């Protein structure tokens, strides 16, 4: 399995619940936010994995764990077959060149007091890849590539002086300037305006081909996945409930939650008005998740066993795995 670029094995992140000093003294037991709870998947070179879930499902935390912006409670991330935790400080620096990130809010991910050119060329300087005029030329080239034209004019501008769409292009350019091979895109188009979204999405698809990239595409919007993802993973309360090739999951959603999510997407066409009722209730708190299958309180297929047993992710064939013993007929 050498073509696996990224492998995530049983990744877990439990944030201790922060409270006042005194509250902690009085509390009998420490509580945790179970943000990510045993997530495993692989991303092959040149593939796009869509990580889909509602807010609080742990998808963003998973992205941060892979980038080592957070230290996992347990579990491991492998890059080209090697555990990231075994990387030395120097090697980690090299890895930062190869793994990049695009955040949801381009305005917040750029320092307001650093010019666009400086921001994009900063990774080059940090990694000692280029300096002076060379760095400037490389920056201008990448700016042209992501459509930030006229590049030499925009080079000196500050983030607040350009439009929202352009800001997201700046962030993309900064992520690509060190020629990485893996990019985590955390809801890259969620903040953009409707008419700008498709532009950014198209740009990301084009750059993927041009730079031979692999993406982890984090989103809450299943409809967008269709245009960029090869595989998708559905997350609910810190766990993956279903993972598989995009077409397969769309056509044949097995987990009741996936089916709900697919049905909930508002379709911009009155011919497809939704008729099925939505399940009641909302995602429970990740502090005290329900025992067993965390979706069972809202699930119409739930049986007694769902309340007790943690459902494992089971392969149903064709790389399609589902964590629902009832629907996969394994109870």
């Amino acid at each position, binding site marked *: 399995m050498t073509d696996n670029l990224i492998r995530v094995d049983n990744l877990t992140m439990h944030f201790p619940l922060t409270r006042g000093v005194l509250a902690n003294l009085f509390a009998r037991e420490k509580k945790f936010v179970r943000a990510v709870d045993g997530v495993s998947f692989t991303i092959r070179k040149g593939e796009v994995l869509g990580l889909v879930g509602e807010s609080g499902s742990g998808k963003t935390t998973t992205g941060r764990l892979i980038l080592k912006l957070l230290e996992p409670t347990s579990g491991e991330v492998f890059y080209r077959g090697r555990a990231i935790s075994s990387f030395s400080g120097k090697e980690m620096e090299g890895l930062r060149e190869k793994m990049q990130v695009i955040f949801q809010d381009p305005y917040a991910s750029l320092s307001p007091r650093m010019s666009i050119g400086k921001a994009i060329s900063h990774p080059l300087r940090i990694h000692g890849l280029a300096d002076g005029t060379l760095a400037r030329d490389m920056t201008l080239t990448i700016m042209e590539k992501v459509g930030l034209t006229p590049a030499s004019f925009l080079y000196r501008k500050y983030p607040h002086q350009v439009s929202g769409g352009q800001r997201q292009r700046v962030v993309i350019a900064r992520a690509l300037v060190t020629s990485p091979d893996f990019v985590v895109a955390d809801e890259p188009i969620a903040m953009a305006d409707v008419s700008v979204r498709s532009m950014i999405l198209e740009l990301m698809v084009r750059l993927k081909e041009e730079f031979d990239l692999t993406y982890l595409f984090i989103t809450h919007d299943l409809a967008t996945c269709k*245009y960029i993802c090869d595989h998708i993973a559905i997350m609910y309360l810190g766990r993956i409930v279903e993972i598989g090739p995009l077409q397969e999951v769309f056509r044949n959603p097995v987990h009741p939650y996936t089916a709900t999510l697919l049905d909930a*997407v508002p379709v911009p066409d009155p011919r497809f008005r939704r008729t099925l009722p939505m399940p009641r209730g909302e995602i429970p708190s990740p502090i005290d998740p329900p025992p067993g299958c965390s979706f069972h309180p809202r699930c119409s297929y739930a049986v007694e066993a769902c309340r007790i047993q943690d459902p494992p992710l089971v392969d149903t064939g064709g790389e399609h795995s589902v964590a629902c013993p009832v629907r996969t007929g394994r109870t």
Partner: protein
Amino acid sequence: MNPGDTILKIQDLHVEFPINIGTVRAVQGVNLELKKGEVMGLVGESGCGKSTLGFSILRLLRPPGRIAGGSIVYRGQDIVKMGRKDLLALRGSKIAMIFQDPLTSLNPLCSIGEHFVETLTTHERSIGRREALERSGKMLESLGIACDRLREYPHQMSGGMRQRIMIGLALIMNPDLLIADEPTTALDVVVEAQFLDLLGDLKNRFNLTIILITHNLGNVAQLADRITVMYGGAMAEVAPAGSLFDRPLHPYTRGLLASIPNIKLDQPKLMTMPGSPPDLVNPPGGCVFHPRCPLSIDLCPTQRPPVFSLDGHLVSCWLYRDSS
């Protein structure tokens, strides 16, 4: 009033925000007619003036925003010229509004019950506190919330529940027009779908007329009878929902529809629209959309297009000058 009668008529409405560096012309000459019992979807991108239009119906513009011209006639009364007392009596009792973010729309220091009691006693002087609480409790239960939660505070509720409380507050006086300003933007997909279902259900139960303001075309497709598309403070197109999605006329509507992902259809590729939304302090001359329009003709940059009526569509575009 019978279903189908005009309940609200907006004519040539202009809204301005004077700021230090100039005047933002947020709404520029919008005409709109609303029939009793219909759901009107008001769509557009951020800054297109859709929310401003919604707020001006209740004259809730934040200073320095002001209505610079035009009329908003509700059941024969012009809201623009209405006195303060009549306006207060109208707000919340005849026309109600719900907002984008349900967390920030409730006063964090007041319990849910206090919100209801305050609204009820404002409009019905004679009502007592106990009776008000009783009625509020019934309302909450009809929305699927236990009535003992009246004692709780907004921060103790989940997002979906807060939005249902907002709608309960809006409907407690039995209004006949509900303005919903991006009511689901802050909600997750599943809760959003739940909420849209609820809204559709309440429309029938309360015999409501609804203006649904949103940037999400999927939402309006699910609920609206007619749709108004706005761009750059002006109205681009008004049409019945089905016909708008089937056969959009305005180039902006077409571009917008082709650029949003549709999970049910097999579009191989999304369209993209060049450029970015206009600066409303110095809007482009003529048609606001012409700098981004692929079909722009020589008339567009100079003259503002009037509204043409075509197959039940109202469209503000020079392309249709000969067709109507």
